[in-house]
C-alpha cells in the first residue's frame, strides 16, 4: 500500500475499543455463526460503553443536541453499537465480503463526476458508510482515489481495507499535518482524486461557521480552498446503509470553481457546503445514530 505521508508522531487512539479489538473481532467472525456473534457484540458494547467515559460523554452531548432531550442509556448504547456494526462491516469487506455502492436519486453530482471520469476532491463525513465510498468508487469506477486518514492506535481495519483495495486506493495520513497539503498536492499532480473528511477541523484548516444542529458550528473549508487553487471540482457525499451488502451514496451537486475571483468562488463554496449540511442534518434527524461522533461537537460561534 502506498503511503504518501509517513507519520512519525505518536498515534492517538480515537476509535472506541482497544488496539487488539479488531483482531479479536476477525477471529470471532471466522468461527462463530452470526446468530451467536451478533448478541455477543451487543454484549461487548454493553460492557465497553461504561469504560469509554469521554466518548460516552461526547455521544450523549451529540444525541442530546439532535434529539432535543437527554438521551436514554439505551440510545447511547445504540449509538455505540451502530458504530461497532459499521466497523464490523469494514472488517468483513476488508476480508473480501462483496459490497456494492448504489447512487441515490439525489446523487446527481456524484453521478456526473463518475460519468465524466474527471479528477475531483471528494468531501465526506463520519456518517454511516461514508468511509466506504472511496473503496467502492475505486474498483467500481476504476478510479485512483487518495483517502486522507488519521492514523489512530487501532487502525487495523483501515490498513487491511487499504491492502484489499490497494490497486485503487492509497492513503494520505494526516498525523503530520504540515506534510498533508504537500501530499495532497502530489496526489493531485499524479492524477488522483482525493477524499477527505469535512466534519472535523482536525482534518483541515480555514475553518468557518455554518448552521448545523441548531447553532453556528465550525467546519473546515480547506477542500474548497484546494478546489479553487487546483481548479478541481468538489463533491460532498455520504454513504448510508441500504440493506445487506449495499451502501447508498447521497451527494451534493458538483461545485466547480470558475474564472471569477477567489472571494466570489468562496462565497459560492460556502453556500454549497451549507446546503449539503442542511441535507445531512435532515438525514441525521431521521437516523441520529448514523453520525459516528464520539468527539466534541464542532465548536459553536459566539
Amino acid at each position, binding site marked *: 500500500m502506498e503511503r504518501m505521508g509517513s507519520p512519525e508522531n505518536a498515534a492517538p487512539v480515537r476509535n472506541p475499543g482497544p488496539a487488539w479489538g479488531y483482531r479479536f473481532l476477525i477471529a470471532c467472525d471466522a468461527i462463530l455463526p452470526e446468530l451467536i456473534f451478533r448478541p455477543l457484540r451487543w454484549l461487548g458494547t454493553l460492557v465497553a460503553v461504561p469504560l469509554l467515559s469521554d466518548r460516552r460523554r461526547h455521544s450523549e452531548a451529540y444525541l442530546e443536541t439532535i434529539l432535543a432531550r437527554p438521551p436514554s442509556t439505551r440510545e447511547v448504547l445504540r449509538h455505540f453499537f451502530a458504530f461497532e456494526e459499521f466497523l464490523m462491516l469494514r472488517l468483513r469487506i476488508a476480508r473480501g465480503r462483496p459490497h456494492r455502492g448504489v447512487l441515490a436519486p439525489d446523487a446527481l453530482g456524484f453521478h456526473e463526476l463518475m460519468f465524466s471520469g474527471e479528477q475531483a476532491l471528494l468531501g465526506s463525513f463520519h456518517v454511516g458508510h461514508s468511509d466506504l465510498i472511496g473503496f467502492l468508487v475505486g474498483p467500481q469506477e476504476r478510479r485512483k482515489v487518495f483517502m486522507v486518514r488519521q492514523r489512530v492506535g487501532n487502525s487495523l481495519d483501515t490498513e487491511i481495507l487499504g491492502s484489499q483495495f490497494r490497486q485503487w486506493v492509497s492513503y494520505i495520513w494526516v498525523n503530520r499535518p*504540515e*506534510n*498533508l*497539503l*504537500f501530499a495532497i*498536492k502530489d496526489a493531485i499532480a499524479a492524477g488522483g482524486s482525493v477524499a477527505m473528511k469535512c466534519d472535523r477541523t482536525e482534518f483541515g484548516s480555514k475553518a468557518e461557521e455554518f448552521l448545523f444542529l441548531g447553532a453556528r458550528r465550525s467546519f473546515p473549508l480547506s477542500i474548497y480552498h*484546494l478546489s479553487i*487553487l487546483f481548479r478541481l471540482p468538489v463533491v460532498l457525499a455520504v454513504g448510508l446503509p441500504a440493506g445487506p451488502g449495499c451502501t447508498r451514496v447521497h451527494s451534493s451537486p458538483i461545485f466547480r470553481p470558475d474564472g471569477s475571483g477567489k472571494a466570489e468562488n468562496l462565497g459560492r463554496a460556502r453556500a454549497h457546503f451549507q446546503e449539503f449540511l442542511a441535507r445531512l442534518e435532515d438525514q441525521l434527524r431521521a437516523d441520529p445514530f448514523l453520525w459516528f461522533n464520539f468527539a466534541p461537537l464542532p465548536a459553536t460561534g459566539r
Partner: protein
Amino acid sequence: MPDPLVSRLKSLVVATLKLEDITPDQIADNEPLIGSGLNLDSIDALELVVTLEKEFGIKIGSSEESRAALASIAHLAEFIRARADPAKLPR
C-alpha cells in the same frame, strides 16, 4: 536600491493571498511568513508555493523545504535565486 526579486516576492505574497490590510512595502525582509508575522496558515503556504513554482519554474517538494523557503522574504529570495533559471528572475 531595493532588490528587484525581493520586491517582486512581496508583491506576489500580497496579490496571491489577497492580503487586504497590508501593502508590499509593509512586509519586512526578515518577517516570518508562516505562523507569526503575516500569520499565514498551511493552505496559504501551499497557495504561495504553487504560485512561486509557476512564476519561477522551481519545484518545492516538501513541507520541510517550504518551511525553510517561507521562513521570510529574505530566505525565499535566497531559495529562489539558488534554484530558478536566472532568465526568470526580475532585474
